[in-house]
């Protein structure tokens, strides 16, 4: 396990060394990459493509669980996350997250990917191109989580601005604090340092908290809660879409987690196995839980359960055993049901369960590292860091502190952002528009127009 840590550190060192000695534009690199180096880069690139395909998965899940009259708007929001989000990440996000210069707070160099020898592969590491590609699709994932919780009532252009700010600044700062070696990476409690292998906290909990803030500032959809506050279901219009979306996300996760190994090595498969086991455990336990609670196996909920397991394993996937992966996924499967019911009770309208799947289970993923970590995943730097493996509470405390920092940062930033949007251009569409449906009035299109519905 220490081999991996050494490789990653020397890879990062290699990048720094090369950047230090080369001028800013196109210089033949001194280091000649080996076949393994190329394999690493090709694998991470392919993993990045899988993660990008998750955009389609998110879009289908959200469209399936909302109403037909808003289907164009939901897909528009998901297209926006990718287009605006990655553009913002290219402009400033990458620089803030990984740019040279700067300190514990933020990076200050490499805006618009300048000052980098893009295709130069350092020894044992990734070229800036591979690294940016992989990180950019992660940023797009973080921001698209919120669109589900904000569905069916958000002004499109306000959402565009949210996507831009999230990927230009809010999310990159968190990345800088963690994978970029800043504030959270500097935390050391008796030798315990943070571990979030593929981003349960950094990506999913961040997105889930933003989703919560969005839903909070928007208020519930019209008709969602009765006069007495009891929830009234607004069933989705296309369950097949929703489940296809879950499958696509599931497949994409095999890029998300194993790709975060950042190497083409033997652990890619073990991480994939842990990922698979947590997903099915989540789905299975949710199926049982929702049947006990509501009487029937609610497939929409079960879909959420699979995703809950996937989100939860995203942090510990390199550090736990297969059996513990099942346990972590199983607990996520129960947690997500409780969470969905809870947020309904406090009248936070989350049409797709994004807050519960990503926010709550992302948090659980971070915590589970502190409880169940046994292998060194190259972040932990040691074996048996988990509480139940004799590691004491140090790791758990680091994970909790990390979660708290992320929570405060996202709440403050999105609070300010949504507050400004609400007070200026407005966050929510008008009542008439919400009742008619957003498709025609925001986009001039109908999602499923029968041929007779229009003339030229």
């Amino acid at each position, binding site marked *: 396990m220490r081999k991996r840590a050494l490789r990653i550190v020397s890879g990062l060192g290699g990048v720094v060394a090369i950047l230090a000695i080369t001028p800013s534009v196109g210089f033949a690199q001194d280091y000649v990459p080996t076949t393994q180096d190329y394999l690493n880069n090709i694998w991470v690139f392919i993993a990045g493509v899988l993660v990008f395909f998750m955009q389609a998965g998110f879009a289908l899940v959200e469209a399936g669980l909302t109403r037909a009259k808003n289907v164009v708007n939901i897909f528009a929001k998901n297209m926006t996350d990718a287009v605006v989000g990655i553009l913002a990440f290219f402009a400033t996000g990458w620089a803030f997250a990984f740019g040279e210069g700067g300190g514990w707070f933020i990076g200050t160099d490499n805006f618009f990917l300048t000052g980098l020898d893009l295709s130069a592969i350092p020894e044992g590491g990734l070229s800036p191109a591979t690294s940016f590609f992989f990180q950019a699709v992660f940023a797009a994932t973080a921001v698209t989580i919120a669109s589900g919780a904000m569905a069916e009532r958000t002004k499109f252009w306000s959402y565009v601005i949210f996507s831009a700010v999230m990927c230009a600044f809010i999310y990159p700062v968190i990345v800088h604090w963690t994978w970029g070696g800043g504030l959270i990476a500097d935390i050391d409690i008796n030798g315990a340092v943070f571990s979030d292998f593929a981003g349960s906290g950094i990506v999913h909990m961040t997105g889930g908290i933003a989703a919560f803030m969005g839903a909070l500032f928007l208020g519930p959809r019209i008709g969602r809660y009765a006069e007495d506050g009891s929830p009234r279901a607004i069933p989705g219009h296309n369950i097949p879409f929703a489940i296809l979306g879950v499958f696509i996300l599931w497949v994409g996760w095999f890029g998300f987690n194993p790709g975060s190994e950042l190497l083409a090595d033997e652990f890619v498969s073990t991480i994939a196995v842990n990922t698979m086991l947590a997903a099915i455990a989540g789905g299975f336990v949710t199926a049982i839980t929702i049947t006990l609670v509501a009487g029937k196996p609610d497939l929409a909920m079960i879909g959420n359960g699979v995703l809950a397991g996937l989100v939860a394993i995203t942090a510990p996937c390199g550090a736990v055993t297969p059996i513990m992966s099942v346990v972590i996924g199983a607990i996520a499967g129960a947690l997500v049901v409780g969470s969905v019911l809870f947020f309904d009770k406090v009248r936070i309208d989350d049409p797709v369960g994004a807050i519960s799947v990503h926010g709550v289970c992302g948090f659980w993923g971070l915590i589970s590292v502190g409880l169940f970590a046994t292998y060194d995943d190259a972040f932990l730097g040691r074996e048996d860091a988990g509480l139940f493996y004799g590691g004491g509470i140090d790791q758990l405390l680091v994970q909790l502190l990390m979660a708290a920092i992320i929570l405060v940062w996202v709440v403050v930033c999105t609070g300010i952002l949504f507050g400004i949007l609400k007070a200026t251009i407005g966050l929510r569409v008008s009542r008439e528009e919400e009742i008619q449906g957003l498709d*025609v009035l925001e986009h*001039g299109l*109908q999602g499923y127009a029968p041929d007779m*519905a*229009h003339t*030229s």
Partner: protein
Amino acid sequence: MKLVTAVIKPFKLDDVKDALKAIGVAGITVEEVRGFGRQGGHTETYRGAEYKIDFVPKVSLGIVVADEAVDGVVDAIVAAAATGKIGDGKIWVTDVERLVRIRTGEEGTDAI
């Protein structure tokens, strides 16, 4: 017996259904339809070219009632479905010659 047909705004369906149940109506048939009256449609752009959305989504309800119940049903629908804004819809009443309950074979007002 009469058939009361009402074309209303889709989001009003719940309110109309509740109002009808409150006055004792036992059954309703609904269809998703598209239509326009004086509301007219509007012009949108699709990939740079203009087009008109003339036909607006509506819901059509059909209720078979006894002759003496017609006025009450019509009033209930108007009260529940009206918003005061254009596009509220229309109600018309037509004759029903014969009515049969399939399960029991009952006919006429017994089948309502």
